[in-house]
């Protein structure tokens, strides 16, 4: 079953035609990785799903229901969370408040979700009272991902979580995603093919605002030629 489908999506930004007819599907329960060179439109695709850069035409189906007409702030309520590019925490709020503010139902992070988060990111235990602005880059990224886990969402969109992280942090992020993947459907944007190849089920490759290639990750791992052509590796 497909949790998400995009049909012929066109998105414009500042008058520029950025997504030129994106077609993609992501299967329920899988980790689908979205690959492609810098500037190919991966972030715009993610933002278009979230309604932050609304599509001008085309259709987006979430669990079979069209969502492209919804307001940006309504989309998370369907059970979709975004971890945007760039270690996106609220700098003036504490880590605890950063998690709390993302909770949609109830007044606090459910205990069992909190345990789950600390399980995935053990260092978080000691960060709760720290302000966002006092975190290191790796800690910020952890909090940004953790914030997307407080609601038990159906779909997580994660945009380049390892960009600019030290190798050791990249490895712990990989372990964390492998763990998260057990209970959630994920679309992950990544440039780092090594990283991505090791945890993904399916892949999508984007070029000039279009999906040019997709399939099971094994097919891509075994196809050097395709890697070279689209990813330059």
């Amino acid at each position: 079953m497909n949790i998400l489908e995009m049909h012929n999506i066109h998105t414009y930004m500042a008058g520029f035609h950025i997504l030129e007819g994106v077609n993609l599907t992501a299967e329920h329960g899988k980790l689908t990785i979205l690959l492609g060179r810098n500037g190919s439109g991966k972030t715009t695709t993610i933002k278009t799903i979230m309604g932050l850069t609304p599509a001008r035409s085309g259709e987006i189906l979430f669990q079979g229901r069209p969502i492209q007409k919804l307001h940006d702030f309504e989309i998370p309520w369907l059970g979709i969370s975004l971890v945007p590019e760039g270690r996106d925490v609220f700098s003036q709020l504490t880590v605890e408040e950063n998690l709390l503010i993302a909770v949609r139902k109830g007044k606090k992070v459910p205990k069992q979700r909190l345990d789950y988060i600390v399980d995935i990111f053990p260092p978080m235990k000691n960060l709760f009272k720290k302000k966002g602005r006092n975190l290191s880059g790796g800690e910020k990224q952890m909090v940004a991902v953790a914030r997307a886990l407080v609601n038990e969402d159906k779909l997580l969109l994660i945009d380049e979580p390892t960009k600019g992280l030290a190798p050791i942090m990249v490895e712990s992020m990989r372990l964390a995603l492998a763990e998260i993947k057990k209970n959630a459907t994920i679309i992950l944007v990544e440039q780092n093919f090594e990283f991505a190849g090791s945890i993904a089920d399916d892949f999508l490759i984007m070029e000039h605002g279009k999906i040019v290639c997709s399939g099971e990750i094994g097919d891509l791992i075994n196809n050097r030629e395709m890697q070279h052509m689209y990813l330059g590796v």
Partner: protein
Amino acid sequence: MSINRYLQKYRSALILIIILILLPLFSSEYIKVVAMQIFIFGVFAISYDILLGYTGIASFGHAIFFGTGAYVSALMMLKAGFSFWATIPFVVVSCAGIGLVIGLLTLRFATIYFTIVTLALGQFCYFLLTNALTYQYTGGDDGLHGLPMVLQTKNQMYYLALAFLLAAFFIAKKIISSPLGKTLVAIRENEFRAKMIGYNVLNYRLIALVISGIMAGLAGSFNAAMLRSVFPGFMGASTTIDVILMTILGGMGSLLGPVAGAALVIICQQYLSSYFEWWLLIFGVIFVLVVLFLPQGLISIVYRFRKKNTSGGLN
């Protein structure tokens, strides 16, 4: 928290409140009036801080609310025989209404539109009060005078104004530390991030504007009650500029800062202006220096000093 810890934590605040309670017993009438003015503008500045400091929206017409509050109270008391307290619900409703209308018209766009519209609307409201057609109701440039006394003595009025400030401060503090307050801070920092986790940013900005507008309106009403007069200047650009100065000089985003800013601006207006012809120039220089070198406002000096003190004490 035990009583002792509580007393220790809020020691300076308690001392200040006790001094303010005792002040009328040994001060002149003039000082009482200045102090009352500070209390009332303190509330006005807190209302501005909720909007600018915590929500990140700059109003260039905040006197619209202050003036509306003052004129609604004054007109209802003078022309319809209402008591001051009976006018309060009308002040609340009219200021909330004005906030909602301005907000719905402008806040769905970039906040700069709100800033421009409030500037224009402020001018328009001032014109409305000073115009020949409305003279028979508003008294034009002369304003309205002879409002009935709310309380019997000046000292009672003093305590009413002080209670007004304390109540406004504690309510604002409660709002700011509630989930609503945290959401406002989050929206100020990054509205897209807030939308992305499911917040309807427009609604939250409207709520902040309505709260701020009501508070500013109430400050206007109390000012009318205290002076027993209203003037079109309450609605004018200079009143807006005053509240901006108070908030930024004192330190926006701190609630206490704007109150301190109100005290500073009013004391300077009262005293400096009688000694130095050039006081506005001096004031301008102070303002520029604060903006350049103390972006957190003058209150940040106090906070820095206190931090040093308390850490020293613990060691």
